[in-house]
Every structure is written in C-alpha cells, then in structure tokens.
C-alpha cells in the first residue's frame, strides 16, 4: 500500500454506502458496523500512505512534488479526454489524516447519538458517502474529479442537514445550503472549463505548470482565479456565501461536527491551498482571498458574540476560523493555513460532539436553558473546555500554535496583523461565554438539569480522543516529535513540504497574542461568571450594535427578500409572458387567424354558378397577365 494505491481510500466508504443502500434494511443493526468497519479500515490505510510519503520526502527532499496515478474515464478522440486520478502530496496527506480520523470519530459517536433514529441505516450510508466524496476531493489529481467529488460532498451535506426531514426548518436549511454553495459552484465549473480551454488539460499540476510557464492568457487566468474562488467561498462559507453554515446545524449534531471539521467547509480552504500558485500569478488574486477572509473573520466574530444557541455559537466560530485560514492563504502562507486546518479539525469536532453530548443529555440547545452541567457531565465538560480554550488560542493547546503561525505570516502586513489581533479577544470571549453559560453557574432549566447525565461510552471516548489530540496535535510542528514517532524527516515537513516557509516561533508574538486571549477570557469570565447581570446591561448600552449582530447584519433577511421578490417575481413574470403572450397571443393567435380567415372566405362559397364563372374568368385573365408580364 503506497501512495499510488490511494485511490482505494474513497472506494472503501463508497462501497459501504452501496451495501448499506441496497441491503441496509436487511442487515443486523442496519449495517452500521459495515460503515464503521470500512471507515476504520480507511483510517488504517492512511498510515502506510503517510509512511510512504515521509520516506519519499526524506529521499527527495523539497524536490518531491507528489505521486499521481490515473485512468481514463471518457474520451472524444483528439478533442477531449477526461481522466480519473489521484495525486498525493503534502496537502493531501494532511487532509487524508483529518478526514478519515474525524469521520471515524463521528461514526462511532453516532452509534449512541443516533440510536433509535427512524432512518439510522440511511444516516450511516450517507455518512459513508460523505467521507468517500471528501476523500476523492482531496485525492483528485484533476479538476474534473475534484468537481465531481465537490458536488457529491454538497449532495451529502444536503441529505444530512435535512436528515430530520419532517421539520420544515431542516428542509429549508438543507435547501439553503445546497443552493448557496451551488451558486459558487457555477463559478468553479466555469473556471475549470476556462482553464481547460487554454491548456487542454484538467490536471491540476499541469495547469499550474502551464500558468507558471505563461501559456494561459492573463485575462483568462484572472477570470478563472476569481471564479474558482467563488466556488471556494461558497463551500467554505465566506462572506457573502456564509449564510448557509449557521442554518446547517439543523442536521444531527454529529453531522455538524463532520461538516465543520473534516468535510465540506474545509474543501474551499483545500481548493485555494491547492491552487495557490495560480492566485499568486494573478495581480490582486491573493489580496482578494485576504480581504474576503478578513471580512468574514470580523463579521462572524461579531455574530458569535450574541448567539444563544450553543451550536450556532460554534458555527460562527467555524466561519471565524475559516476566515482566518483564508487570511493565511491570502498572504501566501499555505503551511500556516493547513496547520490551522489540521488542528482546527480536532477541536472543532470536539466542540460539536461536546455540544451534541449536552443536547443528548438535556434535549436543550439554548444557553438560556442550560448551565450548571459541569458536575453532571464531567467528561463532556472538561473536553468541551479543552476545545473552547483551544479555539480561543490559549497556550499551549493546538489552536495556539496554529494561530500564532498565522500571525507570524502576517508580520509583513501591519494592518492585517493588527486587525487579526483584534479578533482574538472576541473569539476568546464568546468561547468562554458559551462554556460558562452551558456548564457553570446555576441551572436555568432545573428540569433539564435534573435529567442530565454523562453520555455513554461510544460518545465520550471520541470526545476524550479528540481532546487528547487537541492537546498534542499542535506539536506536529516540531521535527523532534516527528522523529520520535518514527517519521524519518519529522512530520513538520508534511505540512511544510515544498516551500521556503518553515515553522517559526516568536516569543514576542506568543506573549502578545496570549495576553489578548486572556483579556477576552477574563472579560467573559467576569461578565458571565462573576457578575451575571452585566450582559443585560451591555445589551442595553449597545442596543443598536446588538440588534445588528443578533439579526446577522440583516444579510439573511435581504437574501430572502431578493429571492422572494426579485427572483420569484421575475420567474412569475416570465411564466405569465409565456402563457399569455407566447402561447395565447402567438400560438393561439395563429390558430384564430386561420379560423377567422376561414370565416371570411366562407362567404365566397355562395353556391351560385354565375359567381363561380365570374371568378374563373377573372382568375384566368389575371394569370394570363402575370404570365405575359413575366415573359416579356
């Protein structure tokens, strides 16, 4: 099992999907063991690939560009060839590790969480397909396969967000997610075709090489990069496409963990990281990524402050993190972005699964109805705290290393650096807030509190494992750790494989950012723990700001109004036009004209011989005149 066999990875969960779909209802336990077995096997198979990769890396050094393997899918000889193939390099390895591990944790967790669900087998089938698609997406060596998997990822998220399909809200949320991301995908597909037009290939590496060689026309490359980014923005919930992600928590909580940590939303980050050389070649390409990322970080940090639904707070924190990753990409530091993605996957999955554990125990998800769960659910409480602090960026949890790495990359860019620093205390604030309101203080809903209990084994073990990784995954950046684990070159090189960029640690940054994080933390602790009345005062004092934030800057409302009035309005107009003008006037009009002509002409049928005779004579004369005039 080496890197060239990586195509096997998506096929295992895909096979589980097919088996569950066809035979699920007839299998014991609806076949969940098949899904988990396939997932575990996939996770296991990632390791030989990682070892093979680090071997190659230590042999070839930074020159090693990855391994590819592909097969033909369809061909119009001489004109078009579509291939399916895999390409494994550093970015892929990071994604493979994240996707398979988080998927496995989510599937194990769902054993208890989804128990008794009326569509339990179907849930596992779609989870498997979700992971399979995401694996295919990160392994794809060409844009066609990437788009193929990209859309399947979208489909699976649609199905899973809408899993509780009897709820109107779930139906609407799933539709919103699919259509919003689909709009971005229009850009992605056009970009892929445009790039093909100038290079004659869909292969990503070949396209990058062609772009660097200058064979792609500048305006085409510019357009493609912008359109490509639209696709990434849609999937990664960047402004103005961010609206679908908070609503996506209508799905079962394990699905949220999967979407936010390992699949779906990181696809956009992955795509930009993968094609970053193209962005670098376009004037303003990286700046666009930077601007969008920064704006998104800011907006989501603000909205995260005021949300009261535990899952919604975490959802906005994801948008916040994604924005940060785009900021890193925007300044040309894919290593920092991928490091953040890697560590983020663990603590974000942890946070969502922790939230799921709370919901499972109390059947509540509004922080106004929670509180005081610390003693009832110690494991959930501790692990959630670890996740929240890591998200906040507290030293020396994994989020800290990744966040500081991004800050370091921003050093040359003073303005962006300062703005990013500003979001740190905000993030720390709302993560502390949600933790305090959920686990500490007085129970706000005694009934829910009374029934609360620690979650079963299959749920807390994934929490514990993820919490453990949240502690240690940041250490990946130290080569010594990698060597100790038996990777010849150290695993830091997995992330920093081919660029001058290496891991930096600047003490000044670390202290400064940590102080900011502590400031946010302390403020939230003070407001929500020590003086619980303060938040109401703050809301009253900053009423306009609060209203703006709690209404999500009115963006959702504006979109809804546009859809209802403009889009559907135009549609109704066109439909009206089609019925009344094209059909009733045009088509029926032709019919009525014929009928009317017949009505007029029928009076020529008098039945009197002299009239007909006259007609014949006039006709003959007329024809004769015509004939003569033509002849001469």
């Amino acid at each position, binding site marked *: 099992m080496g890197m060239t066999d990586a195509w096997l990875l998506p096929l295992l969960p895909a096979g589980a999907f097919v088996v569950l779909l066809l035979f699920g209802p007839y299998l014991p336990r609806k076949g969940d063991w098949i899904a988990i077995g396939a997932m575990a096997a996939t996770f296991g198979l990632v390791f030989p690939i990682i070892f093979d990769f680090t071997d190659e890396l230590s042999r070839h050094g930074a020159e090693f560009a990855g391994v590819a393997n592909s097969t033909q899918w369809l061909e119009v000889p001489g004109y078009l060839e579509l291939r399916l193939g895999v390409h494994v390099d550093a970015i892929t390895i990071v994604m493979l590790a994240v996707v398979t591990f988080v998927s496995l944790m989510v599937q194990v967790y769902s054993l208890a969480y989804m128990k008794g669900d009326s569509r339990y087998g179907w849930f596992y089938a779609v989870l498997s397909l979700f992971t399979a698609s995401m694996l295919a997406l990160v392994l794809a060596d060409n844009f066609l396969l990437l788009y193929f998997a990209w*859309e399947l990822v979208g489909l699976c998220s649609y199905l899973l967000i809408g899993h509780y399909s009897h709820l109107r809200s779930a139906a609407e949320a799933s539709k919103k997610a699919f259509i919003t991301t689909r709009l971005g995908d229009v850009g992605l597909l056009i970009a892929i075709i*445009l790039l093909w037009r100038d290079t004659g290939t869909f292969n990503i590496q070949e396209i990058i090489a062609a772009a660097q060689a200058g064979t792609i026309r500048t305006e085409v490359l510019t357009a493609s990069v912008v359109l490509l980014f639209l696709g990434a923005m849609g999937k990664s919930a960047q402004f103005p496409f961010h609206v679908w992600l908070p609503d996506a928590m209508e799905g079962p909580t394990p699905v949220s963990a999967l979407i936010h940590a390992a699949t779906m939303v990181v696809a956009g980050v992955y795509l930009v990281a993968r094609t970053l050389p193209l962005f670098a070649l376009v004037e303003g390409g990286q700046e666009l990524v930077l601007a969008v990322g920064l704006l998104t970080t800011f907006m989501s940090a603000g909205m995260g402050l005021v949300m009261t639904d535990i899952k919604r707070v975490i959802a906005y924190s994801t948008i916040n993190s994604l924005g940060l990753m785009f900021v890193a990409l925007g300044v040309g530091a894919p290593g920092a972005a991928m490091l953040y993605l890697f560590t983020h996957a663990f603590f974000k999955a942890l946070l969502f699964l922790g939230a799921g554990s709370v919901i499972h125990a109390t059947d509540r998800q509004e922080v106004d109805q929670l509180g005081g769960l610390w003693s009832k659910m110690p494991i959930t409480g501790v692990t959630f705290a670890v996740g929240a602090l890591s998200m906040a960026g507290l030293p020396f949890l994994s989020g800290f290393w990744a966040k500081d790495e991004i800050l370091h990359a921003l050093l040359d860019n003073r303005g962006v650096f300062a703005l990013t620093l500003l979001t740190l205390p905000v993030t720390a604030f709302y993560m502390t807030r949600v933790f305090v309101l959920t686990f500490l203080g007085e129970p706000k809903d005694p009934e829910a509190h009374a029934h609360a209990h620690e979650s079963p084994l299959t749920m807390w073990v994934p929490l514990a494992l993820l919490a453990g990784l949240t502690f240690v995954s940041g250490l990946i950046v130290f080569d010594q750790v990698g060597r100790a684990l038996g990777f010849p070159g150290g695993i830091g090189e997995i992330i920093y494989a081919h660029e001058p960029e290496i891991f930096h640690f600047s003490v000044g940054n670390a202290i400064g950012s940590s102080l900011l994080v502590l400031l946010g933390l302390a403020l939230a602790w003070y407001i929500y723990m020590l003086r619980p009345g303060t938040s109401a005062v703050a809301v009253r004092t900053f009423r306009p700001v609060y209203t703006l934030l709690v209404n999500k800057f009115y963006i959702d409302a504006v979109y809804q109004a546009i859809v209802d009035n403009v889009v559907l309005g*135009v549609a109704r107009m066109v439909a009206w036009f089609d019925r009344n003008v094209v059909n009733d006037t045009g*088509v029926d009009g032709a019919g009525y004209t014929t009928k009317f002509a017949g009505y007029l002409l029928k009076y020529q049928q008098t039945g009197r011989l002299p009239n007909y005779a006259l007609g014949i004579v006039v006709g003959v004369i007329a024809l004769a005149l015509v004939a003569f005039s033509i002849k001469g």
Partner: protein
Amino acid sequence: MQTGYILLATIAVPLLAAVALVLVPSRYPNVVRMIAVGTGFVLFGLSLYAFFAYQVSSGKDFQFELQWVWIENVGFLGDNGITLHLGIDGIGAPMVLLTGIVTFAGTLISNKIEYRNKDYFILLMLLVAGVFGVFCSLDMFFWFFFYELAVLPMYLLIGVWGSSSVFPTFSRTKEYSALKLTLVLVGASVPIFIGIFATFVESGLGTFDLPTLWAYAEQGGFDPNFQKIIFPLFMIGCGVLAGLWPFHTWSPDGHVAAPTAVSMLHAGVLMKLGAFGIIRLGMQLMPEGAEFWMPALITLGTINVIYGAISAMAQTDFKYMVGYSSVSHMGYVLMGLATLNPIGVNGAVLQMFSHGVMTALMFAMVGVLYDQAHTREMSLFGGLSQRMPRFAAFFAVAGLASLGLPGLSGFVAEFNVFVGTFQTYPALGALGVLGAAITAVYILRMFAVAFFGPANPRWDGLKDMSRFELAGGALLIAFILLMGVFPSPFVDRIAETVLRLPSVS
C-alpha cells in the same frame, strides 16, 4: 450477429403487437396488459442488443443495415428511388436503446390504465413503431413517414386518456392541449416536407436514400446558397419538436395533459426526434447551411435553457414544472448541436439520451402521485418522503440528474455541452452553467415543499409505488447511473460518428 432484421423487428414488433391487440376482445384487459408489457420487454431486449452489439471502430458508416427497394426507376425516381433502408450509426444506437428503455418502462407504468386500455395500447404501439422507424431509417421518404406516424397518435392519446388542468387564473382542457400539440407539430412538419422535396429535386439523383445524398453533400453537391435557404426549414421544422423557443408552448401543455406513459414517451423520446432530424437532415445534408445558421440556433438554444428554467421556477404544478424543465433541458441539446464541434455535438447526443431517461422517470413519478392524489399542486403536499419513501427517492434521483449532479447521466452530458460551447461562445456557455444552477433552485424547492416538512394528514392514505411502477422506475434509474458512472459505452459510439459528421470540426 449484426443483421438489419433486428432493426426491422423494432418496427415490426410494435406493429404486430398493435394487430394482435386489435384481435383481443376488449373484455380481457389483463391479456391486453400482458401483450403490452411483453412487447415492451421484447423491444427493450432488441434495443439493448442493438446497442451493445454495435461495434465501435468497425470502419463501417452504418451497422445493422438492411435495404429493401420499394419503388425505383419509375418516373422521376432513379436507382434506389424509395427504399426501406434501415441502419444505425453511433448516434442512432443510443437513441434506439433510449426508445427501448422508455417504451418498456412506459408499458410497465401504464399497467394501471383501466379505461379502454386496448385502444390505448394500440395507439401507443403505433407511436413506438414510428419512433423506432425514425431512428433507424436511412431514407428520407420513410423517415418522414415514420415521423408523422409517431406524432399523430398523440392527438387521441391525449384527447381521450389525458387530463385537464384548472388553475385559479387559467385552465387548459385536454382537448385544447391535444389539438395544439398535434397542429403545431404537424404544421412544423410542412417545412420539413418542403425541405425534403427541395433536396430531392436539387440533387437530381432521383433517390431519397440518405447515405447517397450525404455522400453527394459531402462532395459539395449542394450549392451553399441553396443550403442557406433549406437548412432553416429543417432547423425550425425539426426544432419545434425539440421544443425550440418560441415554438415550445405545445410541450408543457401537451405533456401535462397527456397520460403518464405518453408524457414519458413524448418528452423522453419524441422530442429527440426533432434533434435527431436536425442532425440527419440539417447538419448531414446541409453542412454549409448549418455553419451559416448555427449562431441563431445556439442563441435560441440558450434562451431555451434560461427561459425554460425560469418558467419552471414559477410553476406550482408538478407536471408543469417537469414540462418546462424539459424545454430547458432540450435547450442544452440545441446548444450542443449548434457548437458544431465534436465535444458539443457529443454532449448534445448524450443529453438526448440522458434527458430521455430522466424526464421519463420524472413524468412516471408525477403519474404515480397523480393517480392516487388527483392533484398535482405541490403546495398541497408536504412530508411525502415519510409516506412514500421509495417514490421520493426515485423522484430525487431524477431531480438530481436533472440539476447535473456528477455520478448521474445529466452531468456527463451537460459537461460536454458546456465544454463545447465554451470553445466557441464562452458567454453562452456561462449562461448554460447558470441554467443548471437555476435548475437546482426549482428542483430543490419542489423537494422542500412537497417531500419534506411535516406530513399533511390529508395524504395518509397514499401508497408507495406498486411493483410495476417500481420496476419501470428502477429500469430508468439503472441507465441514469450507468451513463453517469460509466459513460464510455455511450461516448465511444457517439464520438466516433460525430467525428465523421461533415459539418463538425
């Protein structure tokens, strides 16, 4: 074994079945059903055989050829004047397969027809014979004969077995829709007829044999000016049957009024006759005319895509939505043909097949619901996926194929059309991609309104699909998946022929 008798059989079997049905007393409706389903099965088998026994890179232009002289060397007719000349190339082969699939699925779905089912199936069989005839004919005379044979039974099928629609603001009776559909299509065949005769006279070869005329055309036999005048006759005439804007209004009204299997066959297969005619008569006979007129066709095709999709978005009736969606999706066929490059034309033929199976599936599913609920107003439903999970899943597959989800047939076809269009008209290609996004809007809106959300207790009595409906639907889904996952069997056949077309480069 490749023999023209296979193709002859696809035409003869439904005709013989029609005769057999005439002989069965109408008091045995089950015998009638058995004959119909049996015929459907045989036709499916024959077409499957014809498709897979068709050899790629055989070096021959046509396979399964058969030529029987009917009239020759009389009056203005020379050698091979009018012959029953059958044969398929890489474009005909998938079309024959499509017809076989949809016919079989249609007979399975029609199992529920109670009212005069004998007469219904007789007409259906005549229609099917006509369709197979068009796809297999290599003689203009018979081509046109079969074309008309396929169109005319629609009048009775819709008028007698159809259903009328009443909306708050307007209504469409089935008689009106039947009349409109038939008159528009027959009217549109007048220019085709004129074109055929003009071609016959202009060539001076005294034959209606298409391969002979194609060879003549390829040598530059037809004057470019003549081509520029005649090509639009074929383009518009055949285009109307393909749902060409602004002559498309027969299609939504007609398909909505038609009984389920007839909608399936008409939207699934008959609309492809139009596109097929544009290839056979237009592009192959008049390559220079095609080149001259294609900018117009690609513009109209793009309008079809966007206009159809936007109209579909405003529909509240399941079947009208599917009807307008057909108008939209046939636009991709027209766009692909009009690119005149191998990728685009390949995509167009793929889309002909893909749209055929997926729209047949959609109409079949609408029929499953309408037969029980007697209404098609989406907003009256809700939570259907809980009541009828199989039905919802099948409908969802059709919908996802139609919005171009990779892994299903629509993506393969549309991707080729997009790539082809981008080669020559990037702006129109971008509009085409946008059309696919609009499709997602109306398809998902339908799912959200009718399939998801709380179940409406009014529909507690609805039953999921019957065994026959399940079989028919599964058959269509199998081919949607086959093309979506393994497109090569289709593309290999189509591309080889497309690369030979004189106007395509």
